[in-house]
């Protein structure tokens, strides 16, 4: 099992679960990071944090610490 925060840039994976039941995990799920959804790590900000994700056809920015709440299945083939 791996974490979204550790995914290499340009790769994608399916979400396995979101850790925790606090405001942050609720927010991540509301924004569409639910089990089974496919998410790609598009890039990171110039200072290394936050990360830019793509899921459900849109772009989402999360901090590295927040992405650490997202558990993923093994990476899928790269996007491009």
């Amino acid at each position, binding site marked *: 099992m791996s974490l979204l925060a550790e995914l290499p840039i340009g790769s994608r994976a399916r979400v396995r679960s979101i850790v925790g*039941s*606090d405001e942050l*995990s609720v927010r991540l799920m509301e924004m569409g990071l*639910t089990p089974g*959804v496919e998410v790609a790590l598009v890039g990171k900000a*110039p200072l290394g944090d936050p990360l830019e994700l793509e899921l459900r056809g849109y772009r989402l920015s999360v901090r590295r610490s927040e992405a650490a709440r997202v558990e993923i299945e093994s990476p899928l083939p790269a996007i491009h």
Partner: protein
Amino acid sequence: MAAHKFTVALIGNPNTGKSTLFSALAGIRQRVGNYPGVTVEKKIGTLRGDACEYELVDLPGTYSLAPRSPDEMVAVDVLLGNVAELGPIDAVLSIVDASNLDRNLYLVSQVLELGLPTVIALNMCDLARARGIQIDVERLSAQLGAPVVEVQANRQLGVKELKEQLAAAISAGIPAARPSPFPQAFQEEVAALESLLASNEIRARAIPRYLVERLMLDTSGYLQRALATNGFADVVDGHLKLARERLAKAGLPVPAVEAQARYGWVAQMLTGVVTRPPERIEVRGDRIDRILTHKVWGTLVFAAAMLAVFSAVFVVADPLMQAIDSGIGWIGNEVGARLDEGPLRSLVVDGVIGGVGSVLVFLPQIMILFFFLAVLEDCGYMARAAYLMDKLMVRVGLSGKSFIPLLSSFACAIPGVMATRVIENRRDRLTTMLVAPLMSCSARLPVYAILIGAFIPPIAVAGGIVPLQGLVLFAMYLLGIVTAALVALVLKRTILRGPTPPFVMELPSYKWPSPKIVLERMAERAWAFIARAGTLILAVSILVWAASYFPHHAPEIEASLGPRVHQLELERDALVEHSPAREQLDSQINDVENEIAAAYQRNSFLGRLGHWIEPAVRPLGWDWRIGCAALASFPAREVVMGALGVIYNLGSDLDVGDASDQDRLSARMRAAVWEDTGEPVYTVPVALSIMVFFALCAQCASTLVIIRRESGNWWWPAFTFVYMTTLAYLGAMATYQVGSRLPTIF
């Protein structure tokens, strides 16, 4: 005339074109205010239908109707008809982004559960088509059980059909109950909780089903505190714990069950409705984004954009401000010439007209800054700016969203404080608002310029590379930034302590900014400033005028200098017009009159206060004159030049930007000596101490009034005033005490 008035709530995710649709529907017939007790903006417009009129309530953009704070509760309260002023809601207009239906329908699923007549406006279909997404609108409407209307908010397309569908939905009345997206076991738990709450006799009104469901799902404890009161809290708490345990065992853990259920419902709704290409089709915006978020190019573009905005503010706003200033001066002269010398003339010219001027002079900066901020926000770049700057801001306990408001404050804290509306989290927003006035605004620059010009030698240090004057100016800006960072850190660890709010932020697709929205936002902010702050600033200006005018009594000076003026005037009137001798006499008369004015000022309430506080400003290295000028600058720091001008007998109409006026003033300042010792008042430590004081002090009534307006509370501007003034005093004292003990460097 309209037969009946209906209330319609407009709701949608951020970045869906909601504001554009609101303005397309309501035009300029809008009222803006605040909901009581919260910082949420209340925006209501009037929409004319064929046979009726609608009150359109624009709810704040949100991804979810799951209140975890009073601010988030507002939208739910409005929808449930709990806001007395608005009354019950007759219909909901829900706007969704067609290029991003999955996430937008999450909110729709919550809205539909409220059981109100609902119309869906499907916006941004052109972007969806560009991404190769095809939507069967009719089928979507059938699946949702609610009319779906394709609109193009920016081109006013679909507005007529939207109105027709609204009228139809309202006349059809409350729709038949829709199947809940939640699993059966969860629904049963909610029903059990509902009957438990109903057994609480004390409550006058039943809690709506939607809120009972939210109570079950809200793990933050907010709704529990808000709903289950009256000694009933323990019972509800116990029940909730057990119910959640049962649900977790059944494989429906709270709160995850909600996202699972709703996104499951969304997938079901969209089956056979939406066809997407197997790979995301890259549109122009995606290619632009790759550059704008690039490590090197993105940073460069960002720096260039910010530089461009600031240059524009200074280059464009400065002449406008000068023009307003001289226009106000001209009006003051014209009006003054038509009034007799005396308190009335001084009140009208110096108090009222001068006061109005001190309000209007901010307008160019506010409007130009908001023009650019609205462009950046509407095209989608604002979110990228927050993305680029987040890591930097996290170090002081804030998020990337605080960067632009704080940067704006270098031009003027007023638009900076108003720009904090982009920050959703209340604690982050307040912290940003409270430290924004520490950024060295453009009104501080003349104060720095004149003191540095007069007292810091024009030499170069660090091996002759760095000019010392520039270094001191830079140090003043740095002082503001460092102090703001420290204050923010302290605030986030003390009175505004709380869990770090999630950053999780959508990076919206780029689009061309809508000129209408940009101009509207600019006008709205300008008007908000004039209407809400203007009157109060005017009142403060008149008070300060009164304090520095009355009692207007200096018998000794009048007795000794009055006849001299009279005699000089007689001599002058005997001379030929435009002769050099006459001009010389004119300037002599002016000097004597200035001396009389200075005596009045010394004897005024403000002047007496200056003398009275001299012991307090002595540790700062100041004499009573500086203390008096600092006091007079509390309503607006830019008046310090005028105040010093009066005190040093130069007249009050000194022009801050005028080099020769600056020279005259600095010459007087250099010549000033202590009355008791005869030593010069101004030394380098004293000049630095004044600069530090002006850098840190809350000398701007407008900013404080705007903080009151944006925070909805007088407590926060009071706090800002006290903490900044205290810091300014201590900072100035430390500067002088340390500086005057160091060996003289220059």
